[in-house]
């Protein structure tokens, strides 16, 4: 309680000093730094840089800087952000479901419940595919194969404990097999695992739909299902839910402020993000990048993160990656 008061007091003092120095902090003269807890070129980096561009172009911030802090599935960047952005009115963080999983499986002392959610931004469907020559034609065929011999069903996908791995475990469980026996071969990202799929070395593969879209459209891979709750225009594969499996999993990304950001500072940040998300510039970016809009405002996002953290922890426990 005492620490809480101390921080509250500190935040108030810092807030008033910043307020004095900056004059009235209106959205148009926000000077922001966005931390992407990953290296250049990845999903979080491109989300951060797209947001940077949209905020500047739509006039919702005066200047926006992107900082890359790669490491350990984002937990290094998150820990650094929590340390430096406490109560800060101008620091933001981009993160997503992978960071939820990474914090749990790395036994990291920090996780996304320690920062202040501003908005959920995008959510991309995952896709389950089999090689072109595979005898498996439908998700029911895949379920039968899993039920027959779960260990011989070789899955490939992105890093261990990530969204791809979680989906493989969920499908295995829904097929009536023991998820702790999932034979999941982890690759670093959708690129390398794609080669293993095309080479016919695996039974089934999981990845973000966009990463494998080219191979699915050219017929080199057969898409069985997507993990999004509803059908998506332009994607032929049907949702798992529509095919009788009660599974939904979305690779979401969102934007956060530091711990203990409150009052006027928080309102200014929320307003700037909400206005940016509704701007034409952001809609164009979603379209060109092929991202699905998955917006949810701060409060709703907060409950969502709590439920996602619980769910991911349960799945990771069932596959033996968390205790």
């Amino acid at each position, binding site marked *: 309680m005492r620490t809480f008061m101390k921080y509250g007091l500190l935040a108030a003092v810092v807030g008033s000093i910043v307020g004095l120095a900056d004059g009235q902090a209106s959205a148009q003269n926000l000077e922001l730094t966005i931390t992407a807890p990953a*290296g*250049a*070129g*990845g999903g979080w*980096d*491109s989300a951060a*840089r797209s947001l*940077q*561009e949209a905020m500047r172009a739509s006039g919702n911030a005066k200047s926006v800087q992107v900082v*890359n802090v*790669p*490491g*350990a*599935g984002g*937990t*290094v960047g998150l*820990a650094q952000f929590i340390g430096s952005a406490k109560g800060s009115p101008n620091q933001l963080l981009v993160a997503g479901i992978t960071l939820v999983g*990474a914090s749990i*499986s*790395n036994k*990291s002392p920090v996780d996304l419940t320690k920062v202040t959610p501003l908005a959920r931004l995008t959510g991309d469907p995952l896709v389950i595919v089999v090689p072109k020559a595979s005898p498996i034609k439908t998700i029911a065929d895949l379920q039968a194969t899993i039920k027959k011999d779960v*260990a*011989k069903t*070789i899955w490939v996908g992105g*890093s*261990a*404990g990530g969204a791809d791995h979680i989906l493989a475990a969920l499908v295995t469980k829904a097929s009536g097999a023991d998820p702790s026996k999932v*034979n999941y*071969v*982890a*690759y*670093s990202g959708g*690129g*390398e695992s*794609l*080669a*293993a799929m*095309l*080479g016919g*070395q*695996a039974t089934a593969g999981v990845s973000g739909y*966009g*990463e494998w*879209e*080219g*191979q699915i*459209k*050219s017929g*080199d891979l057969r898409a069985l299902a997507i993990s999004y709750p509803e059908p998506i225009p332009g994607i032929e594969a049907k949702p798992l839910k529509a095919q009788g499996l009660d599974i939904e999993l979305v690779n979401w990304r969102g934007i956060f402020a530091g711990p203990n950001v409150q009052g006027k500072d928080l309102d200014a940040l929320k307003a700037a993000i909400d206005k940016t998300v509704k701007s034409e510039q952001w809609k164009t970016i979603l*379209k*060109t*990048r*092929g991202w699905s809009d998955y917006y949810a405002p701060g409060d709703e996002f907060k409950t969502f993160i709590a439920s996602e953290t619980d769910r991911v922890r349960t799945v990771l426990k069932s596959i033996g*990656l968390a205790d």
Partner: protein
Amino acid sequence: MESISFLLDGFSLAIQPANLLYAAIGVIIGTAVGVLPGIGPALTVALLLPVTFKLDPGGSIIMFAGIYYGGMYGGSTTAILLNTPGESASVVTALEGNKMARAGRGGPALATAAVGSFVAALIATLGLAFLAPMLVKVAVQFGPWDYFGLMLIAFVTVSATFGSSPLRGLTSLAFGLWLGLMGIDQLTGQARLTFGVPELLDGVEVTTLAVGLFAIGEALLVASRHLRKPEQPIPVKGSIWMTKEDWKRSWKPWLRGTVIGFPIGALPAGGAEIPTFLSYNIERKLSRKPEEFGYGAIEGVAGPEAANNASAAGTLVPLLTLGLPTSATAAVMLAGFQQYNIQPGPLLFTQHADLVWGLVASLFIANVMLLVLNLPLVGIWVKLLKIPLPWLYAGILVFASMGTIAANPSVVELLLLSGFGAVGFLMRRYDYPIAPAVVGLILGPLADSALRRSLQMSLGDPMILFQHPGSAIMIGIATIALVAPFIFRGLSRFQQDED
């Protein structure tokens, strides 16, 4: 030949004045970034992405290609002159290149690197244009077992050929493997050997180890000797340009380096490191003057530099045909394509033929520009070596530390760098080869996950390594290369006993 008419169309796109300008800006930035330690091409391309949003897709992709090739050229310059490889692909270049520079032959070393890079990139870009769709079909058949076999060959050849004895080589390799296993295990997501230090969760950075062992270790050794016997600044002997003999000794390694580099670069997990080390070993075996290796053999610069640049072109094969980026720069380039709603992949060559061939054509143009830009610079770079040794090495220490911190600003990183510097000094002092340690760090984790992926796919049956002909042959070669020297030595001792 349909491809040739496409290529000519590509040239007509690339040769437009605006696109030529983008290519020129790209190669200049790329070379500068390659020379400066700590700023890699990947970060540069990422920083430029929002800037290029306003350009048309063709122009910006052409500029990225210029940066990509330019970075490859620039990286070898610091490796040769300062023994400070800016990226893992130029580690091998430092081995002989810096020895040549220290012997007063920095000019020819830089020149053979520049011309070799040109030749390799030229041939490899042709390969990209005409072989890409075919090559990629072979590359995806390469399973984890085959990667494991390839790594074994690299381990054995590197530890057996570097240094005064295989045992010393293997010791150095084991040190590298130990470092390589640190961090989060890719297959299970669990931390290994990190001792609770969060900065180690991502493992040890290759450039930190390479710069520590090479540059800092060397500087410490020179300083320790300088106390007793001050060395003189390096005089530039002979021509700064390549002699007739240099040409004669360089052209075959260039071609061999290209042949090794391009296909391995095209493998989805091939990279630039294996081909450079393999090329070095092959040149050492084939050279008429093997005794010069370790003291500045020009073949040891020409081959690996060609292999390095050929593999850079090879990396574009999976990028363009599969949409699969195999290096950080390629990943950012992929984001660049997506920015224009273009998804690289099997349909790219048919849907956006103009763009692909424009890119290929501009790679040719960038390559010519780089040669024109780099050859006159050789004369300027070489002057660096006239700086008195204490100044030069003090400068190297500053640049090495600055580069490491710029890439990853943390105290742990700086401590690691100093620690590796001390280890590098001791390894030099007691005659342990350094290259195997770096190879262990780079390839150790790859070999580890390749082996475990194979076993996962075979449900734990190790025979999978011998059931596939490719991996069986490669493991066989590695075993022979490791065991043969010992057997021959044993035999000769046996014969001596009989006499």
